[in-house]
């Protein structure tokens, strides 16, 4: 009897505990795979504020860009993704939604009343937004421009020497050809400063870098009807200038260099310029981190008027629990709010909201955000489709062959254009 009573009370207790489960359940922990760049660190600093407000813990796993795609894909094809909030590059904005891996964020926006109006429309387009679907909400932009050394371009001796050698006045280059000529001049001058810190490693680094040359020279990957027009006189001029700069203007080892290598070189004061993300300026213009160049740098739109436009966004994977999805949206909504966007911008964030670029506090701290907006507004996009990541590799291989002198620019450009056509038809 005693035993029976104990058993019944144990069972009752267990049932009550099980019923009360959700009340005692662990709070959701959001896990995101993030690129190890300043933007991530900026958000990371603000995370305690979000955790305090909502009780939701957020963990960032920071790695290099090159390893992100494979790591994410492995999770997205698994039954349940370990990462329950996603940082999605615009290059995957064709692939991830096409594979059906992402939640449509539109219902989340409508339900929460999140205001999309301040978000720069080109950023929404870049990340695959349509009237019916919002697979990715813009997070920050990485449009590219030219960062150059003002001390070198303003130096009287350099000016005189440049005039003597070229017969031209030294000035911020207005065209791509002028830029490459200037870059080559600095390398030929024989000091310890090369003309350009270039990221020529095959794949994402050289594809992104070359895109700036292509757009600056007036070329394009696709026309308005999505027909491949890469193999054009403008495209060839861009590739020839790119190869020329790698060979005669850039640092030794440019063909194996990544963004990190170029940053280190520029930071050490060993390069006159770099074509890079516009928000790299405050990272380099920092006396504590880069004393050799702090106070001696400026940003301009890519010579020629157009650079590569890019951006990251937030996504929510389909293969996570509803509870996780709700928490993920709460986080996305918070981190992209105006208040947090301004707080991020004051630390060097590259905004996707137009209201942040005009914020007085932001402009007071970073006057170059005015140029930043010009860089963003004039940027053009790499072709976005399901095989964009593969196309970066196809293009990257051809660029590397041409820049290394292993292929003629004409042949490399034709192969790169054919590769794009094949992948678009796949």
């Amino acid at each position, binding site marked *: 009897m005693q035993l029976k009573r104990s058993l019944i009370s144990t069972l009752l207790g267990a049932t009550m505990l099980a019923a009360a489960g959700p009340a005692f359940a662990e709070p959701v922990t959001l896990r995101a795979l993030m690129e190890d760049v300043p933007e991530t660190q900026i958000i990371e600093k603000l995370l305690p504020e979000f955790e305090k407000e909502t009780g939701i813990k957020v963990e960032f796993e920071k790695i290099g860009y090159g390893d992100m795609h494979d790591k994410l894909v492995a999770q997205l094809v698994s039954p349940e993704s370990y990462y329950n909030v996603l940082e999605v590059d615009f290059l995957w904005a064709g692939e991830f939604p096409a594979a059906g891996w992402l939640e449509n964020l539109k219902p989340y926006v409508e339900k929460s009343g999140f205001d999309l109006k301040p978000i720069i429309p080109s950023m929404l387009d870049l990340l695959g937004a349509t009237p019916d679907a919002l697979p990715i909400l813009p997070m920050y932009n990485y449009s590219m421009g030219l960062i150059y050394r003002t001390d070198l371009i303003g130096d009287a001796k350099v000016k005189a020497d440049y005039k003597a050698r070229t017969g031209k006045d030294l000035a911020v280059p207005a065209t791509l050809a002028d830029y490459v000529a200037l870059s080559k001049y600095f390398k030929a001058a024989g000091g310890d400063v090369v003309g350009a810190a270039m990221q020529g*490693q*095959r794949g994402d680094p050289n594809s992104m870098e070359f895109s700036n040359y292509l757009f600056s020279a007036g070329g394009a990957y696709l026309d308005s009807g999505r027909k491949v027009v890469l193999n054009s006189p403008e495209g060839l001029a861009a590739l020839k200038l790119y190869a020329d700069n790698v060979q005669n203007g850039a640092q*030794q080892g440019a*063909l194996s260099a990544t963004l990190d*290598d170029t940053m280190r070189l520029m930071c050490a004061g060993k390069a006159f310029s770099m074509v890079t993300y516009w928000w790299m300026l405050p990272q380099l213009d920092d006396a504590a981190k880069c004393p050799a160049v702090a106070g001696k740098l400026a940003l301009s739109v890519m010579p020629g008027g157009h650079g590569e436009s890019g951006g990251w966004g937030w996504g929510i994977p389909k293969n996570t629990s509803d509870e996780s999805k709700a928490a993920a949206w709460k986080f996305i909504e918070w981190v992209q709010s105006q208040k947090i966007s301004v707080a991020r911008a004051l630390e060097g964030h590259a905004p996707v909201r137009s209201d942040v670029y005009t914020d007085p506090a932001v402009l007071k701290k970073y006057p170059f955000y005015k140029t930043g907006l010009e860089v963003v507004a004039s940027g053009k996009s790499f072709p976005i489709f399901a095989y964009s990541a593969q196309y970066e590799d196809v293009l990257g291989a051809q660029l*590397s*062959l041409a820049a290394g002198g292993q292929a003629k620019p004409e042949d490399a450009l034709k192969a790169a254009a054919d590769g794009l056509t094949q992948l678009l038809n796949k």
Partner: protein
Amino acid sequence: MRLPAFADREWRTGWAFAAPGLLTLALVMGFPLVYAALISVSSLTLLKPMLQPFVGAKNFVAVMSDPLFWGALWLTVKYSLVTVLGEFVIGLAIALMLNRTVTMKPVYFAVLTIPMAMSPVSVALIWRMLLQPNLGIANQVMESLGLPRVDWLGNADLALWTMAAIDIWQQTSFVVLILAAGLAALPRDPYEAAEVDGATALQQFWYITLPMLRPVAAIAVIIQLINEFRTYDLPYILTKGGPGTSTEVLSFFAYRRAFLGLSLNEGAAASFVLLLIVLGLTVLFFWSLERKR
């Protein structure tokens, strides 16, 4: 009357002991292998993750009709032969020296084991920093010696051999350990007889050491050959297959097909070609070893 094998108690006990191991092998090796084989003849891609329909040899044809595949195969063969040869020659020299050393042997072995114990990714990252052309130590040393700076990984003619040298640096210790164990186990009698007959050290090495060491050396070579054919970490970290396609070995080619091209089926087909080559080499190697015995 002869009983069937399964009726024999010893036979059944043997299988009972072997069964857990065989089952584990079937699960951890057999299942992925069969699954990969199925993928290689299916239309499965990361965008359409379904095994149906069966497409026969289409993926193999697609992979093998790509000129890059043959380029990658040739690079893999060159790379594997050079690295295995380098590892063997250096490994044998070190093993012979260690065989004669009497003092501090454990210390030498401990030091030699360090590169082998490191993950190839860490090794690649460390060397990438050391060989950085502008700020790396290697070029600073070269410059201090009055030598020109070298573009170790950015020069298409040099990148593969730089990668091979890094690989040799890491993998030689494995060869040393195997050969040193083999040398230590060799009988002393033939050497004593050779000394009595007045054979020189070189003659002893050529006519006694090498032939007797052959089975152990063969094992070391075949293990390393398999390892080198599968090399993936070094090109992934150091060069991403570049400059151009100068370091795109076969395993990296398969990775590109599978994960950048989102074509798991073609990636699996390329991997199977790699597997068949390695399998063929292994069989050939053991067959020639048995024939010489």
